[in-house]
């Protein structure tokens, strides 16, 4: 429990300093929060040397999958904190509390990763979601931010309700909320009873809301557009990864013996999600809306790996999330640096970015190509693994949809590249990039290229994380 305790302590320190320090010094809190999260990585490494542990009577488990996702969450939180610090001028006041909310959401994600009981899982998910409700509506004078917050609140509550209702059915059918008991019950009788099946459907609905996949994806573009940019980044990477983690836990760990009941459904949802996200992205004019739709598309790709129900498929999901983390956050870092100086998220304002800031334009170029899945970048190998798992399971149609969507996504990403590189800037003043953002971008770009070219170790990492599941 060491990382969780450390993050709680960090949140407490940030809360105290926020009360004690004057508003002007609050940007230092961002540095404290982000640097304070760094020591979690060695803790996770240290924990990974032990075999799987069950704590608190099975409520809490520390297994390789949990540790892998905790690493993803912490890396996301560090970069999101730095982005928030970059955007401090846009918050009228109280930006110190924002770091606290990032830390509580991160804490919730750490709990989700290790939850071994449905009630524990529900409470941890609520901790994430409630932190996000506040963060989404943080720009108090911006109507779009308020609208986003309200939408996320209402739809999020419905999803939480469905999830809780589903837990009730699972409890009613198996007599327990513990993962171990439910798993045993399903293994004993893999032809699911109607109550159990209904419970699974309801729980899945709540999870799919988190992952932003069809049919619970309608909120995404509006919320992504209205929320502060760093929150959008957090939602698109952290919250989505948490959703997929829960999906893997429920479907691959608990309901694997009954896979015949749900793989078809997930495969359909994957295909529809890929098409919805990528086709919807084409007409977008606002970059955050565009990224919203594209993140729906990526959720669809990840669902391919869930539907595959093989070791390769699950490994592919983990690898894809790893690559998606560095790639999508690189895009959001550029968006953050750009909107701080230019004050706009409209794609037409990116015209001539390659002359105003060659570094930002090049970073955006590489990250967008990686999102589209162009070799030798990390996104390519993730898509390659997912398509491979689809073909090996006989989902040929799904593989073809995934392949076609690469072409569609390349179209809208390249339109933005064209705007940045070919069009003439309306305002030729250079855009300076602050040191934390520059360093973070270097790290992300190195990771995009590194994971893409030297895939072996990262594939090994993703593979090690799924060993407990199969």
């Amino acid at each position, binding site marked *: 429990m060491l990382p969780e305790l450390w993050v709680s302590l960090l949140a407490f320190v940030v809360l105290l300093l926020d009360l004690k320090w004057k508003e002007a010094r609050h940007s230092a809190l961002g540095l404290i929060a982000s640097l304070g999260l760094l020591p979690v990585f060695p803790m996770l490494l240290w924990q990974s040397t032990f075999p799987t542990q069950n704590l608190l009577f099975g409520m809490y488990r520390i297994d390789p999958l949990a540790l892998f996702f905790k690493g993803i969450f912490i890396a996301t939180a560090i970069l999101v904190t730095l982005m928030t610090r970059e955007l401090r001028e846009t918050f009228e006041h109280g930006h110190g509390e924002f770091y606290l909310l990032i830390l509580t959401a991160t804490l919730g994600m750490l709990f989700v990763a290790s939850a071994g009981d449905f009630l524990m899982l529900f409470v941890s998910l609520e901790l994430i979601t409630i932190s996000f409700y506040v963060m989404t509506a943080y720009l108090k004078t911006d109507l779009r931010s308020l609208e986003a917050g309200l939408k996320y609140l209402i739809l999020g509550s419905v999803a939480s309700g469905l999830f809780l209702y589903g837990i009730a059915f699972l409890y009613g059918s198996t007599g327990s909320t513990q993962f171990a008991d439910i798993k045993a019950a399903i293994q004993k009788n893999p032809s699911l009873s109607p109550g159990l099946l209904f419970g699974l459907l309801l729980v899945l609905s709540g999870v799919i809301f988190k992952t932003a996949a069809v049919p619970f994806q309608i909120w995404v573009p509006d919320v992504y557009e209205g929320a502060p940019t760093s929150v959008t980044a957090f939602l698109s990477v952290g919250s989505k990864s948490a959703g997929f983690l829960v999906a893997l836990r429920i479907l691959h760990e608990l309901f694997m013996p009954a896979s015949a009941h749900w793989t078809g459904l997930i495969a359909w949802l994957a295909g529809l999600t890929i098409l919805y996200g990528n086709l919807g992205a084409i007409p977008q004019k606002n970059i955050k809306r565009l990224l919203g739709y594209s993140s729906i598309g990526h959720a669809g790709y990840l669902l391919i790996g869930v539907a595959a129900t093989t070791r390769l498929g699950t490994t592919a999901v983990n690898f894809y999330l790893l690559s998606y983390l560095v790639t999508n956050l690189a895009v959001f870092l550029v968006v953050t640096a750009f909107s701080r100086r230019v004050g706009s998220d409209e794609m037409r304002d990116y015209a001539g970015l390659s002359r105003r800031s060659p570094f930002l334009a090049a970073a955006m170029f590489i990250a967008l190509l990686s999102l589209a899945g*162009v070799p030798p970048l990390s996104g*390519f190998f993730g898509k390659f693994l997912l398509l491979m798992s689809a073909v090996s399971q006989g989902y040929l149609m799904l593989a073809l949809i995934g392949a*076609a969507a*690469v072409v569609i996504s390349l179209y809208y990403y390249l339109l933005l590249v064209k705007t940045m590189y070919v069009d003439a800037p309306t305002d030729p003043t250079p855009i300076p990039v602050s040191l934390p953002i520059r360093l973070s971008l270097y790290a992300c770009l190195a990771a995009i290229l590194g994971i893409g070219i030297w*895939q072996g170790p990262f594939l090994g990492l993703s593979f090690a994380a799924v060993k407990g599941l199969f």
Partner: protein
Amino acid sequence: MNHPVSWILLSPFVGALVLILIPSSQAAWVRRISVLATGIPLVLTLWLITHYNRTLGGYQWVDRIPWIPSLGIAYQVGVDGISVTLTLLHALCSFTGVLVSYRIRERVKEYYIFYLLLIGGVYGVFTSLDLFFFYLFYEMAVIPMFPLIGIWGSGEKDYATMKLTLYLTAGAVLALVGLLILYGTSGLQTFDLISLERFLAQNPIPGEIQKFLFPFLLIGFGVIAPMWPFHSWSPIGHAAAPSAVSMLHAGVLMKLGSYAILRIAVQLLPQGAYLWLPWVAGISVMNIVYGGFVAMAQKDVKFLIGYSSSSHMGYVLLGIACLNPVALNGAVLLMFAHGLMTALAFAAVGHVYDQTHTRLFADWGGLARQVPFIATAFTLAALAGSGLPGFGNFVAELLVFFGSWEAYRISAVAAVFGIVITAFYMLRAVRTGFLGPLNPRWVQLQDATVFERVPYLILVSALVAVGCWPRFLTDVIGASTGSVLKHLAPLQMLAQR
């Protein structure tokens, strides 16, 4: 000289990396490094082709590093007679392309970075002996075209570059799905081309699956070949691209498609090939005749050469479809000769366009008086394209005709008729553009300087050398086409019975 193939592959990438690090104000150094990064592979490739063991045949200078053993992926490069010939073509076109790019003045550093990445990707495709890396380099060769045409191109470049990139990527991902099915059904769990070839020769994939799988690879790679009706990206792409990119694009990139069809689809799926290639023989006639007629109607020189390229690639497809050694040797030789010829033509057109800013040859008129050297170069390219003896194209086309007469008579007749069409529009282009009285608008036109003549001389002398001494290449090519056809021999006997 322990790993010549890897050095060839690495040097453009290392060049691009060095360019990223040096400041963009050092344009002269940017150019020097690019010349070096493409010159080294040229020298190495010349060494390879003269030292390739013709009696032994097969893959030589193979380098292998296990990359992801759990999935059967390895970095494996090497060349056989077919790929060493195409590597030489690429080395010649890319080196002369860098020289021709001396006229680029805007954003020089970025231009050369993308150009070197493109060059490296193409080397990768021709030398990879692992299907994963093959695909990786293939897609890497496509993407740099987008900024190269989008930023430094002309005319309808926004539309052209998007169309080109999306068409080629669509083909690539279709082929990728095909490769993944191949991986799944071979039962070997490896992307290693050499072991796959050996294994599938003994344990072929079931005929039904081959029949189903072959179109994935044929159409996927056929898009870049460019096989009718998927060719429409190509003329418009050529027309919009800067001339050095057109040279590489028409000269080499199109050959990636026919090379991939030959190396992967035909070689690994012989039964599928046997079933589907008669269709390709028919389609190739559409390429030749339809492409030729469309070329005839063009008023823009670059569009003319673009359509003529897709017409000429029809001969290559026809040669592959015949599945006999004569036609196959002809097809590979034609890839080589056509690449040089079309690069020469695009270089010459680019030289004129940079000064006149119009490519309608009705606007040109009598340029031979003003730029005799460039006019000569273009005329030589036109004559080579029309199949005049003395140039490599003549020998290659003759081989394709002989081979196809045995296999598909109707296609062969149509293909010979295609030569007449080619001669018509090529000679007309020379006449209206370069001969006759000089259009008074162009009295300021500058001919190529001594330095600028170097790339033209390289291309012309290579073209003539192959025309006069084709055995130099056909021996190398023939050493490998035999092994491609070896898998097919039993099937053909079966059909004759």
